[in-house]
């Protein structure tokens, strides 16, 4: 694989994904903040969680860029829509299968079965993360499709 290309375009794609999600957050389309969800795994301090989570998120973005690159490499060619397609599958997996699992490992998130003890922890995202707003799936899918499209468009395949 072309490591330099992965690091560069993985970073750019992660920045684009984060920006799009943040715009969705700021515009009131969703309450989902991936850096916040990741950061609160490590710290209960809301302000610190955003910073730690952002770093964690970029690292994740790079890790996933390796997976995307491995898929493109195995297919043997790359283009923006192929990357976008991988991003779409990725987003659907995250929403449908990943999100409902988070309460199981996140130390500061409750599940839908929580109670009657009072909750001062994170709300569960629920199926398709709909608990964070009805437009959360659309924002998440759009962000991941852009992420994949950037990698698909700009990643340079390693030679044989």
């Amino acid at each position, binding site marked *: 694989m072309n490591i330099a290309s992965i690091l560069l375009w993985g970073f750019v794609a992660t920045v684009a994904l984060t920006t799009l999600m943040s715009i969705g957050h700021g515009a009131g*389309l969703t*309450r989902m903040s991936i850096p916040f969800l990741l950061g609160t795994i490590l710290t209960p301090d*809301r302000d610190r969680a955003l910073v730690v989570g952002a770093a964690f998120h970029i690292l994740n973005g790079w890790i996933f860029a390796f997976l995307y690159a491995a898929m493109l490499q195995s297919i043997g060619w790359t283009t923006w829509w192929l990357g976008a397609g991988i991003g779409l599958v990725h987003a659907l997996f995250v929403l449908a299968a990943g999100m409902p699992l988070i309460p199981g490992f996140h130390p500061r998130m409750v*599940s839908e079965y*929580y*109670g009657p*003890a*009072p*909750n001062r922890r994170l709300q569960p995202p629920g199926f398709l993360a709909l608990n964070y707003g009805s437009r959360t799936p659309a924002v998440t899918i759009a962000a991941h499709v852009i992420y994949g499209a950037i990698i698909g468009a700009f990643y340079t395949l390693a030679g044989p």
Partner: protein
Amino acid sequence: VTSPGGGAGTSSQSYAPIGGYAVIGDCRSAALVSTNGSIDWLCLPRFDSPSVFAAILDADRGGHFAVRPAGVAATTRRYIGDSNVLETTFTTSSGVLRLTDLMPVDSEAAKSRELWPDHEILRKVECVEGTIDVAVDFIPRFDYGRVAPAIDGRRDRIFYCEHRAGLLALSGDMPLAITGNGLAGTQQLAAGERRYLSLTYAHGMPAVEAPLGPNADRRIERSIAWWNEWASTCRYHGPYRNAVVRSALALKLLSYSPSGAIIAAPTTSLPEKIGGIRNWDYRYCWLRDASLTLRALCDLGFEVEADAFLSWLLHATHLTWPHVNMAYDIYGESHLPERELTYLSGYAGSRPVRIGNLAALQLQLDTYGELVEAAFVWLSCGGTLDRSSKGNLVELGRAVCSRWRAPDDGIWERRGGRRHHTHSKVMCWLALDRLLTLHDAGHLRVPVAQFGRERDALRAEIEARGYNEQLGSYVSVLDGNEVDASLLVLALHGYVDPRSPRMRSTCDRIRGHLGIDNLLYRYKEDDGLPPGEGAFGICGFWEVACRALQQERTTAVTQFESLLSYANDVGLFAEQIDPETGAALGNFPQGLTHVGLINAALSLEKSGQR
């Protein structure tokens, strides 16, 4: 005295009174149990999900789950100790039967050690004296009575029925048979004999069966212990402790633990006038209740619940920020489309039955004040806020500055168009005043000059146009000549000295214009709907608190004790009270009424200490 019957009654019988119900729950959903042992209302998996039993809204189609003596019985009920475990005792000519109903609860640590169902309703029936025939009638109807599911009885004494992702499983150690409607069975019990019925619900997962017998007894004991321990932390030890603790327990049942939200009531469309059209869905969270609810929780010592509720208020409502809607669902969704279920006959013929609530789209400027005041109360109790929450509060202040001059729909959600409501202006004033106080105390930074200027402009406007010199009273709308009970809140939030001439005369005017016995109507103006609603529960408690603040303690105590007499046999209040009969009206139990009771009791206690 109750007689055999299905749920709320059949079409030829009258419905059980609204106040004839008691509530059980697990802080994610709640069920109403009638005096004749019938669960006539239950939504799963959460408060605002479609119903599984809705006989309270249509005795024939709604579905119910009844356990009762086969003959005529006299009934007494109580909650066991300071718990939400309900005990109904039936006395018949042949014996005495005790029915225990609960949705089992326990600590998260205990629940993590064994597999618990998503939701369970556990019913234990025990013959205490003589012999008695116990009849069970189980008629599930999914989706607000629309779906009559097939019942699968292939396994011994466990029956299943499902609809979409939801699966109900009823297990019991009584003989039950599948009928055309559901399940039914009768068994004779002698003194000392007991039986169990466990109804569990699974959503999108395999069912978890809950064991019966001694294990069920342990779940009952642990649930009672959990509730008693929770209630024991209540800091109020005054003369009305029983009523205050019961109100706190009711309020707790209305909280949705996974998010921290507190709903207004667990029911929809219980009528404000029997046979009328004032039937609304209250299974959502009203921001107008925020500050008084938070004050009640903080003052009683339930800081964790207060923290969770404030966190929900400041973050779950983010989707519409910095504008805030009047109501949200338990996860902060503000789109609550209203629909009429035309196929349901409604409680005692009170149609339409509505789900969703269009009022959520109304503009209520008082909600800004409610949110800021809630945060203020929290900080005054020693709580803390993170940076983003503080930023949210400042944004609210900016929104107030830009919006307060607009008319709004007002606290009572009248659907007749927007007006300049005095109460809303006062709550806008309160938002800015509290933000400036928090700024001075170093909690956050606000644009002092702008907020101060707008706050002063608000007060000038309210005092000039919200007070009618001829009437000698604050009035409902600017330049108006009518009063409504929300004006009592002006004193409770500290906008005006309760003992000032203006506030005293306003209280007197409200009593004279809206009072009936010791109750208060919320308003008397035409609201565009057919007249006939009852007196408003919380308004009476607001008046008690006002009188207590005005050092009219004797009057306040008399009125408070009179209001307490309108609670039902297990201490619960609906939204409204029929002044003629004392009957409960509207959705039930109503959190805001219980918040009013708690705050009035606390005001009385404080006034007695002065």
